[in-house]
């Protein structure tokens, strides 16, 4: 179990200029430099994983999504035309799309893992009988949870959510309201 090494790819760039360093890493990754990809993983891997975990609700699925994102990254970068400052937002969007793809593909198993169940109850214990917001989120249906997370956490507009999930804007709005209502009831009911 080891994390990627930090050294070589950074030598491509100027440490004093983070934007330039990132740009160089992106370019090196695009050309197939494994070390540069490792650097990008250090910088953005946690972020990608957390987003995937929130959306899928499963650690195993989140790992799959993160792995997919980084394995595909050298090729996917061909489609990235923004500046280095836009890279963070871009890779987060890639992660969201990848997670949605996994959810849509049916590859994902809906069974809750033992770990997941344990976490659910552990969370409840920790807060003296109250469900945590994350545990409550996991009790929502996929369609409600996804809209809620895409709107509240990822900051998408209903128009974008509708496009991502292939639903109407009105449907996206309705799902958000229902998700909020369910969450509120879950959290109130656990008090």
């Amino acid at each position, binding site marked *: 179990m080891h994390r*990627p090494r930090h050294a070589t790819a950074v030598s491509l760039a100027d440490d004093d200029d983070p934007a330039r360093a990132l740009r160089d890493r992106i370019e090196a990754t695009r050309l197939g430099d494994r070390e540069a990809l490792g650097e990008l993983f250090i910088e953005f891997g946690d972020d990608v994983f957390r987003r995937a975990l929130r959306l899928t609700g499963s650690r195993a699925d989140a790992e799959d999504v993160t792995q997919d994102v980084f394995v595909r990254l050298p*090729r996917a970068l061909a489609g990235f035309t923004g500046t280095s400052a836009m890279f963070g937002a871009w890779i987060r969007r890639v992660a969201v799309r990848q997670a949605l793809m996994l959810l849509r593909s049916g590859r994902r198993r809906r069974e809750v893992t033992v770990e997941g169940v344990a976490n659910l109850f552990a969370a409840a214990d920790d807060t003296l009988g109250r469900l945590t917001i994350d545990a409550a989120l996991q009790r929502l249906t996929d369609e409600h949870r996804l809209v809620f997370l895409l709107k509240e956490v990822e900051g998408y507009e209903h128009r974008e959510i509708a496009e991502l999930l292939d639903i109407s804007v009105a449907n996206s709005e309705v799902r958000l309201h229902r998700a909020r209502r369910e969450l509120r009831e879950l959290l109130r009911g656990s008090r």
Partner: protein
Amino acid sequence: MMRPTIGLHPAFDELSAFADRADTEVTRSRVGRHVARCATCRHAVAEIRALGEAVRASEMPGAPAGLWARIERSLDNDVASGPGRSAGAERSVAIAATRDAEPPASDSPKGRGVSTTIRRTSLGIVLVVGALAAVMAMDAREPLAAATPRRLTTDRDFARPGMPITLHYRPIDALAHERSLTVWMLVPGKGEMRFDQALERAGVLRRVSGLDFTGTVALPDSALMVTFVVGDSTGDIIDRTELRNGQMPAVVLAADSAGRPRLDALIAALGGERGSPDRATSSRWAAKMRDLYPSAPETWILSDVHAQRSVIGDIVKLFESRERKYYSWHDRLEHRAGLSAETETMMAALGWELMDTTRAEFWVTRLLHDHPESPSAPALWIDRYRDVPNDSAAVVLRAFEPIYTRPNEANGRALERALMLADRSGDSALVRRWHARIDPRNVSWLLGSELPRLADDPAALADVRRRLMDAITDAEGRMHGGPTLYGRSRFFAWYERQRLRTRLAALQLVAGDAMGAKSALDSIAHDMEMKPSCPTPETMRWRAEASRRLGAMDDARADLAYVATTENWQLQRVGDSVATLLGSAYSKSSWNDALRNARAFHRQCWVDSRDARSRAGG
């Protein structure tokens, strides 16, 4: 959708929508004005906004420590084949392919027309054709299709029998709670991977950390290649993630004493028509084959079929290139003695595929001479005659008699061709002789031309009944048998049993027992609905016939409508003769009502069946 709120609080949805707006809008809307005056609703809006803030503020764990290592492993697997491999790797493969693996290419295209090269035969016989189609299909995929992370990995791709192979597994959720897991293996005969072949137990994996299992297994002595999958101890749950994603599960090939993959194992792995491995895996094996066995003819052909082709935009060019290679291989091998059956089979199959009749016939003749026991030879022989005129079919079949030696797996294809010729010949003795060679379990012909004969021949009827009973027993064994790579094999064994029972009931009807047949068919239809699954049109067609003979015309009409509303257009044609079948019981309005009810029934049983599959994990 506005709701009157005078004197009432706004609905939750309205408050939720309001919560997304900026506070500056407070006074501009009816809800805003209400919220400004109502403490309860202000509190509700604050709660709604707090939900989002709470989620954004909640801490989520970062990527686990081992994830980068897993990504690296996946990248390593992808290097040999994926579009993301380095230019250097691509060059080295290309150089190996041209310098070591192939004989010099001849420049004699011999004026063959493009149209003939594009024309695809329906050979589908062995090895190369299926694999070539698979490679071409994969090349047409979008370039960003990346490797899916594997859950089961092995520490080696090649192993000697008995040598320990370490497996690492990251479980699907359905297996995540198990303390230990069972490794199941498929040991295919002659390298052919059959998805309905029963899996054998290979070993046990134990949990080493939260989500990681590990353990060791070994290759059986005689195995050329072994496919491993992981499941629970009963085999009720098998992780088929890779198969669903179009990848091969973990495969290990037999190695020689030096630890190198054996040539026969590589031939088995790359040449197996069914279960063609995924592109990444097959390219890795092909590269290994070129490295280790550059002068073997099997390497020239198989490594070319499985060679990495980054862009195939023009199928014509591919075929022209293959033709040139084929001619050069032919020139080199034509006078060489001691060629393997695999080489000669591949040369014959390639010849047919490229429509090079002369060379194909040369290799078929040579295969029959050098390897008369080859299971591929009969199919290769008869395929060239599939388009002969009807009055020549009997002549072809007579010549085929000594070549068709025994019924076996590969000869099924040859038999299929022979049956088509027999049916076209119009010679009833020939038809009967060839139909009698069908696998006893396969009674699909029973509802065709043979049925009237059975009605008049009690001995033949008894014989077929006995064979059907044997086949039902066999299907029942498979219903309760061990797991297979194919997730629904137990269901299909059950389904096959129902079809066989239907034919048994049909025999009963033909023998004159309409009441008994109706009762049996009712039972079959009931079983299918209870599964739940849609009853087969065949069951319903026979039940309609039984009802008709018993004078129960309403029942007959309902079952005929069911058949007429299936998706099979040939079965739908039963509607054309319904007036004749129902006689005076037919009326347009009652038939239309029956069709409407049948469509509703179809929809419902389809939904029930889908939901049941979903509950059972797909």
